[in-house]
Each structure stands twice: as structure tokens, then as C-alpha cells.
């Protein structure tokens, strides 16, 4: 039975829905290998959703709590001697825990209220937070699958991933994903589309394709990439969040400043490029003076030398905004 579900996930080609897009079956198989050593296995649902303007996990918590919990139960069945923790940001915890409990009662499923910042959404930062350690990403290896929470084998998946696993198990999965749409649009909200659907079609079919000149941030309200209208015909990778900006009405520098505030506050300050660049970019945007040469240098070390994905990805929004919007 266990093998079944992992094979099924593999055949469905499900990629993690937290944004990184790692094949889910690989994580499951890595954890499965740790079974039978008498060790407890932790199954964690990551509901931290800390990136600005993403709320598709909330949509699931609100509208599909039972299916989500079923997904977790599938994991509990798959791994012997396992226990689940649902890790929710404090807002979601306060709002949805009661209702979720209706479905999780009687199972070894507990809830953890996330009080720490954005980095506690990164899977190893999350483990540190639950353990009461300082929230910063852990070196890998060891991967959580081998030595995760309290050094025990740990599966960390996003909320939507569990929801999709429920679908896969029950042969309901049709390769769809939830997209959140925000910004200068008429119909904000969460919509379900095939995972490789082009942004243009999504905006059109939800009645959100703007009549004005605009640009889009895709992949999250801080880490997302900036795209121009003519770039939206192809499917994109990354967190399924679309934010539309009215080009005339958007102050690009202010937008950069908002990101910089977010990053300098939410990063863990562990590594030099991320800690220092986030602060320096904030300084520049506050002073209204961008030094493109210095910026390019910082982008270089961010991408090449940051410790974790947060830092590695930080340059993308700035760089694409500067290239496509600011410099034009």
C-alpha cells in the first residue's frame, strides 16, 4: 500500500507546492528509507505562508480542510511510527485550527503556532523554530528526511501538496494548482487552473486582464519575478501567485523599498551577502538613490554565495524590476 502511494505520486509527477518545485515522491521515498530503525518519523505540514500577497494555502484551510487533513493521514499511514505536526502562521492558527481539529481528532496530529518570521517558513528554519532554536536555515546535508526535527526523519510538505496527495490517492488529481491573484485587478482571489497554465490565460479567464499598461510579479510578493504583458504567454515556474501592478500608478522605487523592508526584517542575518545587501538596498531606496553598479555587485554575491534560497532568490525581483520597468 505504501509503495502504491509513492509510485502514484511519482506517476502524477507532483512537484512540491511550496514554490521550490521539488519532486514530492523523492522526499517521500527518502523518508520511507529511514523506516524500520525504531525511529519516530515526523510528518509536517508547512502552513507558514509568509510571503506577502500569497494566500492560496489559506484558501485550502478555509474551503478544503477535510481533504487537506486526509492528505496528512495518508502520510501517517505510509510511514510507520509517525506523528504529524501542522505548522501554521499565527493568523491561520487562530482562525482555522478549531475547524481542522474536527477532522484530525483521534489521530496523532498536533498543531504548532508560528510566531517567528518569514524564514521560519523555510523547511529547516521551521524545524529550528519548533525545536525552540534560533530561526535560521540549517546546513544540508543532513536533509530533513534523514535528520530533521529532533534529529529524526522528517517529511516537510506544503499544505497544498497534502491536498493534492489526497486527490492522487483518490484518483481525482488533474494536475491543477491554486493561483492567488492580487494587486490592481477587479477579481482578487484564489483560482484553480492547470499547473502549467500561462498567466495571460489565467488573467483573461478570471476577468482580470487589465485594460491599462501593467506589469506582473509572479512567484510571491517579495521573491517573485517581474514580467511585462508580452511575456505572459508561456507558463512560469515558482510559487503560484500573480500580482498585477498598474504601470502608471506604481512608484517602482517605493515598491523596491517595500521589498527591501520585508527582506531586511525577515531574513535571519546569518550570512554576509543576504544580511548586508538587504540592509544596503533598503538604505538606497530610502534615500531615493540607486547606485546600479553597487546593486549589480550585491546581486552577484546574493545569487552566487547566499546560504539559503531566500538570499539566492532576493536579486530576482530587484533585477527584473530595474531592467524591465525602472530603466525604461
Amino acid at each position, binding site marked *: 500500500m505504501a509503495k502504491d502511494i509513492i509510485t502514484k505520486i511519482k506517476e502524477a509527477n507532483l512537484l512540491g507546492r511550496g514554490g521550490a518545485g521539488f519532486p514530492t515522491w523523492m522526499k517521500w521515498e527518502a523518508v520511507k528509507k529511514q523506516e524500520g530503525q525504531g525511529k519516530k518519523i515526523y510528518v509536517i505540514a508547512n502552513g507558514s505562508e509568509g510571503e506577502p500577497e500569497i494566500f492560496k494555502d489559506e484558501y485550502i484551510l478555509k474551503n478544503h480542510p477535510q481533504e487537506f487533513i486526509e492528505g496528512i493521514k495518508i502520510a501517517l499511514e505510509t510511514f510507520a511510527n509517525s506523528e504529524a505536526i501542522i505548522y501554521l502562521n499565527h493568523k491561520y492558527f487562530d482562525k482555522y485550527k478549531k475547524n481542522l481539529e474536527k477532522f484530525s481528532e483521534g489521530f496523532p496530529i498536533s498543531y504548532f503556532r508560528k510566531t517567528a518570521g518569514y524564514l521560519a517558513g523555510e523547511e529547516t528554519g521551521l524545524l529550528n523554530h519548533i525545536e525552540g532554536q*534560533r530561526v535560521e536555515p540549517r*546546513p544540508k*546535508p543532513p536533509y530533513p528526511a534523514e535528520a530533521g526535527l529532533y534529529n529524526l526523519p522528517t517529511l516537510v510538505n506544503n499544505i497544498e501538496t497534502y491536498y493534492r496527495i489526497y486527490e492522487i490517492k483518490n484518483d481525482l488529481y488533474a494536475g491543477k494548482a491554486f493561483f492567488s491573484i492580487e494587486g490592481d485587478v477587479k477579481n482578487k482571489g484564489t483560482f484553480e487552473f492547470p499547473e502549467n497554465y500561462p498567466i495571460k490565460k489565467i488573467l483573461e479567464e478570471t476577468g482580470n486582464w487589465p485594460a491599462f499598461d501593467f506589469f506582473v510579479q509572479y512567484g510571491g510578493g517579495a521573491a517573485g519575478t517581474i514580467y511585462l504583458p508580452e511575456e505572459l504567454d508561456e507558463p512560469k515556474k515558482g510559487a503560484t501567485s500573480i500580482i498585477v501592478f498598474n504601470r502608471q500608478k506604481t512608484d517602482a522605487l517605493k515598491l523596491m523599498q517595500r521589498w527591501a*523592508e520585508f527582506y*531586511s*526584517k525577515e531574513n*535571519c*542575518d*546569518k*550570512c*554576509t*551577502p543576504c*544580511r*548586508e*545587501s538587504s*540592509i*544596503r538596498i*533598503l*538604505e538606497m531606496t530610502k534615500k531615493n538613490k540607486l547606485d546600479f553598479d*553597487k546593486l549589480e*555587485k*550585491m546581486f*552577484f*554575491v546574493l*545569487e*552566487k*554565495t*547566499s*546560504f539559503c534560497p531566500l538570499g*539566492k532568490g532576493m536579486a530576482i525581483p530587484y533585477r527584473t524590476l530595474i531592467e524591465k520597468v525602472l530603466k525604461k
Partner: protein
Amino acid sequence: MNSFKIHINDKEIDANEGERILDIARREKIHIPSLCHHSDLEPHESCRLCMVEVEGDKNLRASCALLAKPGMKIYTDTPTTQKALKINLALLFSQHEDNCEHCGRVEKCKLHEYAEKYAACGNIHIDRKKKLPKFQFGPSIFLDQSKCINCQNCSDMCSKQTKGGFITLKQAGETFEMFPSEEKNIDCIYCGQCIMHCPVGALSEIESYSEVKKLLKDKTKKVVFQFAPSVRTSLGEEFGMPLGTNVTDKIFAALKKVGAYKIFDTSFAADVTIIEEAAELLEKIAKGDNTTMISSCCPAWVKYAEFYEPELLKYLTTVRSPQIILGGLIKTYWVEKENLDLRDIVSVSIMPCTAKKFEIEREELFVDGKRPIDYVLTVRELAKLLKELNVDLNKIEPDESDKDILANPSGAGEIFGAGGGVLEAALRTVYQKLTGQELENLEFKPLHEFKRTKMAEVTIGGKTLKVVAVSGMENAKKILEEIKADPTKYAYVEIMACPGGCIGGGGQPIPIDDEIRKARAAGLYSTDEKRKVRTSHGNPGIDILYAEFLNDKKNKHKICHTTYEKRKKGEIKKI
């Protein structure tokens, strides 16, 4: 162990499974810069200066953590690594207060060294930390946030040395900075290990050497010095001498040159400590008391016990540390003998240790209401003092003349400075007292499951005493747990807060690592081997001192013994 070949910069190199690229490169003398890497600590991967290219990988990788794999091809010096290094260095440099001329650490500062070497100096941004506060922990430790580069070496080390970690990162607005803990149940033990592992000058001792410098010029004062056992084989490093060089006679000469009135050797008082501890242990054995006796000459360990483990205080020997015993003897026995006026005397000790600055303020150690010691200088401070007064240890002629009995130790007193030395010195005397024979060679076995822990079993008259010496609080904590579970497990336990004992102390020359610790310890042991007198009880000066002074019960009590108490959290000053 599995070994295989890798390539670094196209050179074929043997590597072992589990080895990391930075360590391999260093042993092959291939230079990779790094600020946060320290062989005492797990890689923290925070400074991002040790980035290398790995064939087949588009990102750079941190070599400090990167495990070698068969066939790996590593490039340390490519346009990409060089570009990244310069930018990250510049970013680090601009977070750090730009005030190198006035920094006590500049000669040993790795950031400064790299900035010059890679021409990445010059802040590319304004100094963002200029206005950050500074802190003092008790009388010992100085933390300057404006110089901190967030590497976390100090906090990693501190969490080993304390329970819970006294020095920790805390969010202060948009950034995290290093702060002393405000928790009621976490305190600093003043060991100075944070200083030893700081790659820049953000942590240092609270200095007293300027005061001492002034007093040396004051004609109305007689400044007397003592120096600890471990100082003799480390001070040379500050003057570029080979590791482990014994400079005892040069210390006498140098201090004389800068105006010392008299110079004593703390190792002599270590002999006194041994005589007293041996007596206490023998008395315990005679009484049939099987519980353990724990050494108390390390003030950081004593602070740890008083703050974190007060229920263990009853096992600590009541004997004072050598520094305090000698301080007491100077201000009583010696001053009387020499017919001097106590008011003219300034007593200074040169210590490998920052906790010794705290020890001299403990009121229960005062003698006739006065501090036994007026100033403690670390080895680093002494080096600065000598350099400022233009005394070069390399050039000065050794001077052995005019030594008081309080300046003539046995070999036993000198090995005090190395982890395990106190234990060995004590056993030499205990063995002799119980059997009438000299202990030839003490065989130590490493306690394999524990780091920096040595155990020995000595059979005396059919009775086997199990004794153990441990250094570094991280390791000592494990022994403490054993003692709590069974207080009779060991007859005698030596605990030194600093890894390796005082030769690795918080007041020693920087840098520190196991190779350096080994060389400093080896220097002490080779001196011991050459000595005619290798036991404390065999030191003729000891006989004189006891006959003239310490056989008097009252004198012995006020000079040699003390009490301990549960201690509240020490003072933290914000500046």
C-alpha cells in the same frame, strides 16, 4: 576510513571520507580565506568568504562545510570566486566600524588582513554600526557591537561554555546583533572563550594595562608582578617566537626592564595549592569519605558551579587558586619579611585568563580586608605593555638573578597550566604521602567517549583511586552529570573551563587551535622533565615557607582556604 582522490586547482590530492574541502586545502597549504571557520566549532557557513567553484555546480559552495567526494574538482581561485570574495569582504568591512588605528586587535584581525591582502578595503557603504552600543560583562569581558561581523563564533562557543548561551543574537530593528542575555538563569562565567574565537576585535578583555603602565612610572609605588604557569610558553608567540617556546627567564628580564620592583612565579603558589589540596584529599580518604573532590583553581569553573550548579559546591576543594595564594603571601609574608610598607605595594598578576579579573574582586578572598591582587593583565595585555615600552622579548637577555623563594617553583607547579596538570601534580604528592615513594609516571587514558577528558587509576596500598581531568565546559558538563549520578565515582576531578586548560585560556595570544594548545602544553611538560625538583613537596622553598609562616593555622586559613556560595547574576554594563 575511506580515502580517495580529489582535485583542487587541478592538483591531485588524497582526501578522506568526512573531510571538508577547507580543511583539506589548509593542510595542503592552499589558501582559502575565511572569517567564521574555526577548528573548535562546527562550520557555521556565515561569512561566505571561503566560496569555491565545484565542477558541475553553477553556484559557488562554501568550502568550510563542503564534504569531499571522490573525483571532486574544486577551483579556489577563479574570476568568479575572486569577484565574490571582494564584494563580500567589502560588505563585511562596511558593517564593521572603521576605526582600525584605535583597535587593540588590528595586528591579529583577520578582516583587516584580508581587506589589505585583497585590496577590498575602503567601505563601499557607510559604516552602519557606528552608533551601536558596547557592553561590559562583570570586570572581564568587553563586547563592542560596532565591530561585530555577525559570524556567531562567540555565541557558538558561549553555548558550550554556559548553560543556555549567555551571548546571543537578538533582533534589534532590521538587524540581529550580539547581546548579553537578559535571562535570569543565564550568566557569563568570564572564561573569555568568546574573545578567543572572535575573528575581529568585537570581543576583548576589559583592559588594565594602561593603569599598570602609569603605576610603573610612579616613583612612590613598588609594582610587583607574578605570572601564571601557562604564560611562560605562550607569551613568545606575541613576539613571533616558535610555538611552545619557554620564555620564563625573559619574562623576569623584561619585567625588570620596565620597572618591576620584584617578580614572583605563580607556579610556586601552585605548589602551595597542591600541598593543601593533597592534605585535604588525604584527610578525606582517612575519614573514609568516598565522595569526590573537585579542583577550584579555575575561577570560570568556580563561577559556573556557583551560578549553574550550586548543589555541587560541597565537593569543591576549599583551597584557593595559586594567583590568590601568592597575592596573599606577597601582601603579608613577603612584605613583612622585606620590611616594606604595604601602602606602597601594587600587586599585578599576568594571567592566561579573563576570569582571573573577576576572581580578584571576590570579597571572600580578601586578606585582612584587602584585595590580594590589584590588577590582572592577560598575556595579550602584557605583550602590548612591553611593546609600548619598547621591550622586545626576542632581544632581551634572560635574567635569573635575584629570585625570591616565591619565584622558584617545582615542575609540578609549572604543569598546572596544561589540562590534566593540576591532577598530575596533586597525585605526585598524594602518592608520596601515602606510600613514602615517588610516583614514577602517571599513565593517563583518554576517556574515549568524552572529548578533552583524561582518566587515570592509581593504586595506592591496595586502594584504587579513579581520577579524571577535563577541560572545556562542554566536556565538563558530562562529568558533572556523572558526579551528580554517583558522587563517589571519582576520587578527584580537575575541571578547567577553557578547552585544553589555561594554555588555551581566554587571556592567551590569539589565534588558538589544538596544534597551538599542544605546543604550549608540550613546552610546559618539557620544562618539568628537565627540572631537578618535580614535586611540590620536594620544593625546598615550600619547606621554608611552611616553617616560617604557613604552619601557623591562622595564616594558613586566611591565605590558603575559602568558601563558596550560590551566586546571583553578575553585572552587565551598557556603554
